C-alpha cells in the first residue's frame, strides 16, 4: 500500500491557521465589506462562477481549498448547485455570453446571500478592460459584497476575505 506509506510519511500538510482577521486588518477587504457575518456564521457554502477569467484566480482558489491552506477548516465548502450556496465566488470580467447566466445564478441562490468578486478582473475588469467581448465588471451585473484584489490574489488573501463571512 504505497498510498498508506505516503500518508504516514507525509503527515499533516495544512499550515497552522492564522488568527481571525479583523475588518481593517484583512488584506484587501473593500470598504463595502459586510460587518458581522450574521445568519451565515460558522458555515458558508460557496459556488464558484467563472464569468470569463484566465483561470489564474481559479488556480489560487483551488490552492486555497487544497491541503496546504485548507479553507474547509473555517466552515467553507465548495458546492455544485447555487441552490445549496450562500455566497458566490465570481472570477474574471463578465463576458457578454456570461452576463445572463451570472444573473440566473444570482437569482437561483437563496437569500441571505453574498457575492465575492475575486481578483482584479472581477473588481474592475483588470487587464481586459475595454475588450470587445467584455460586458463589464461583476459589480455591473450583480451587487458585490466582498472584493479580493490581486492578479491573482494569494490564497491567504482569499481565505482572509472568506473568513470575514463565516467569522471563524
Amino acid at each position: 500500500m504505497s498510498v498508506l506509506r505516503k500518508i504516514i510519511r507525509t503527515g499533516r500538510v495544512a499550515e497552522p491557521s492564522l488568527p481571525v482577521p479583523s475588518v481593517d486588518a484583512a488584506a484587501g477587504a473593500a470598504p463595502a465589506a459586510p460587518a458581522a457575518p450574521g445568519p451565515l456564521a460558522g458555515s458558508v457554502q460557496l459556488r464558484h462562477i467563472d464569468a470569463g477569467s484566465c483561470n489564474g484566480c481559479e488556480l489560487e482558489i483551488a490552492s486555497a481549498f487544497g491541503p496546504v491552506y485548507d479553507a474547509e477548516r473555517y466552515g467553507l465548502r465548495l458546492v455544485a448547485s447555487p441552490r445549496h450556496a450562500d455566497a458566490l465566488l465570481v472570477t474574471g470580467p463578465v463576458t457578454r455570453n456570461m452576463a445572463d447566466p451570472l444573473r440566473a445564478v444570482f437569482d437561483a441562490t437563496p437569500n441571505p446571500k453574498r457575492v465575492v468578486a475575486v481578483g482584479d478582473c472581477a473588481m474592475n475588469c483588470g487587464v481586459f478592460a475595454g475588450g470587445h467581448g467584455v460586458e463589464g465588471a461583476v459589480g455591473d451585473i450583480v451587487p458585490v459584497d466582498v472584493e479580493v484584489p490581486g492578479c491573482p490574489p494569494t490564497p491567504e488573501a482569499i481565505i482572509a476575505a472568506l473568513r470575514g463571512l463565516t467569522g471563524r
Partner: protein
Amino acid sequence: MTAAGVVGVLVQVALVVGGAPLLVGLMRQVRAVLEGRAGAGIGQPWRDLRKLMKKEAIRPEGTSWVFTSGPLVLFASTLVIAAVAPFVSTASPLDGVADLFAVVSLLLLGTVALTLAGLDTGTAFGGMGASREVTIAALAEPTILLAGFALSARVGSSNLADIVAGTLATPAQVLSPATLLAAVAFAVVVIAEAGRLPVDNPATHLELTMIHEAMILEYAGRDLAVVELASAMRLAVLLGLSVNLFVPWGVATSSAPLALLGATAVFALKVGLLGAVLAAFEVFIAKWRLFRVPELLAGSFLFGLLAVSASFFLA
C-alpha cells in the same frame, strides 16, 4: 408497552437524529486527517444544518407536492427504521413489528420519495440522478434479501430482535461461513444504498458523476436541511444495522436505565468506529464507472447466494 420501553425508543431516536450529523462530521474529519488537512471539526454538519434553516426555501416553477413532500417522506421513513430497529435495546415495545424485510422496504420507500422529487424538478440532472439511483436500488434488492434470508435462516425468524438475540445467544455463529459471507454481501449493499465510494461520490461537483446529489440539486433552505439530515440518518441507520446484526455485543436485553445508558454508549462507539473505517477505506479508492457498478452488485449477489447455501449445507 412499559414506560421504560418507550424511553428506550425515544433514546434511540434521539441518538440517531442527533448523532447522524456527528457521524458525517467524524467521517469527513477522518478523511481530512488522512489527506493531511486540518478539517472543519466534527460539529460542522450541525452548523451547516443550523445555517440552512435560516435560509429561504424556494418553489421551482412546475413542481408539485411531490417535490415539497419528498424530504419529509425520506426523513419519516428513516426515523421509523431508527425507532424500530434494535440499536440500543432488544426489549423495545416496537420489536414485534421490526421485521428485516419491512425495514428494507422502508429504505426503498425513502429512495423512491427522493427519486420522484428529482423527477418532479423536470431537469435533466434530476431525471438522470433518479434513473441511476433506481437502477442501483433495483439491483441491490436481491443481495439485501438474500443476506436477510441467510441471517433469518439461522434463527428461524426475520424479526430483527430475534436475529440479534440469536447471535447474542450463540456467539460462535459470528464466525460461521454463512455469517461471514452474508457480512461481505451486506457491506457492499450498505455502500450502494448509502451512496458512498466506489458506487457514488458524495462530494462530487461533476453532475455527470452524480447519483444522489443530482436528485437534490434543486433543494434549498429548510428542504435541503431535511434532506441532508435524512441522508445522514440513513447512513447511520445502515451502519447501525450492519453493526448490530453481525456484532451485537453491548445491546441491552432489558429496559433497565443503566443498561440502556451503557448500550447507547457502546452503540455510538461501534457505529463511530465503523464510520471511521469506511471513511479511511474511501481515501484509498476512486469512484467506479457507473456501468461497472452492476458487476459489483452481481458479485455481492453471489456472496449472498453462497451465504444462504452455506447456511443450509454447512449448518
